[in-house]
């Protein structure tokens, strides 16, 4: 799955990370998608998605993570989430006013129910997950540059 590199932490940490990082990412996506059915939502799930990538980055180093999700792609996801949320809000004008819940409500306790709420959750999950990852990458690379100067 992930190619072994010399960088990063020890073999034990790398093996455990290989087992758990995918599970954390899946759990974050589950929390985002079921935000209107059970506890959680876009913000908590998005932070979990960001934490799975940060987990991978702490164990394996920067290059392995950038092969999976580059900085440009993360910025693209941040912008996509913001535009998606604003687009859903603006689509409400088709039936009435801004931010109107215009899709049919559906059955309770089903995945596709509650109108626009799951789609808004997905947009918030995208913007939070990619945004925190980008902030972490920016802070870490700032540190590296400062160490190189000294």
């Amino acid at each position, binding site marked *: 799955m992930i190619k072994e590199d010399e960088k990063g932490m020890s073999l034990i940490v790398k093996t455990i990370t290989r087992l758990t990082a995918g599970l954390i990412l899946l759990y974050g996506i589950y929390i985002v998608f079921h935000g209107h059915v059970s506890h959680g939502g876009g913000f908590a799930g998005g932070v979990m998605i960001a934490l799975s990538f940060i987990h991978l980055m702490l164990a394996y180093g920067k290059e392995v993570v950038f092969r999976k999700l580059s900085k440009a792609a993360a910025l693209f996801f941040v912008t996509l*989430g913001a535009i998606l949320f604003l687009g859903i809000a603006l689509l409400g004008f088709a039936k009435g006013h801004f931010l109107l819940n215009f899709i049919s409500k559906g059955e*309770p306790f089903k995945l596709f129910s509650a109108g626009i*709420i799951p789609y808004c959750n997905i947009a918030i999950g995208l913007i939070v997950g990619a945004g925190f990852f*980008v902030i972490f990458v920016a802070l870490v690379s700032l540190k590296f*540059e400062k160490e190189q100067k000294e």
Partner: protein
Amino acid sequence: MIELYSLLIFMIIGAIIAIEAKDLISSVVAVGTVGLGLSITFLVLKAPDIAITQLVVEILCLIVLIRATIKEDLSFSTSGRWAFSTLITAGFIAVFLFVACKCLKELPEFGYPTMRVASTYLKEGLTETGATNLVSSVALDYRAYDTLGEVTVLFTAVIGVLAIVRQVGRKKS
């Protein structure tokens, strides 16, 4: 009630240790225990949504703080004007305590909130929005303008961090 008080004492002890610790790593770990206690407090007060969010944000903040402070151990600055700053701090604490004593008498008692708008949400929320998680229905349907503002703040924060710490365009001195 007793578990809330014990959690509160635990958090206060953690905050005092965070202030008084000699090196930054112990201080960061003590701040982490304060956040963990806050998360368990939300769980005791039956707010699992906020407990989940507090827990994961606390872990993220701990990782960022340790990654930011583990390389360099900053020395604490002790300037010569400690009497002036102590006097200012004591004055602000006195003003805050006076205003808080005036305000807290007007609040409803702990555990007995005034349910004017919230009772409408609890009764009508499932039929009006279709979401079984009422927190989600309030955050994304009744109060969607707040969430739109929150997303705008987060987006602006990401753009601002990238604009400040970017490497392209920085002059070499």
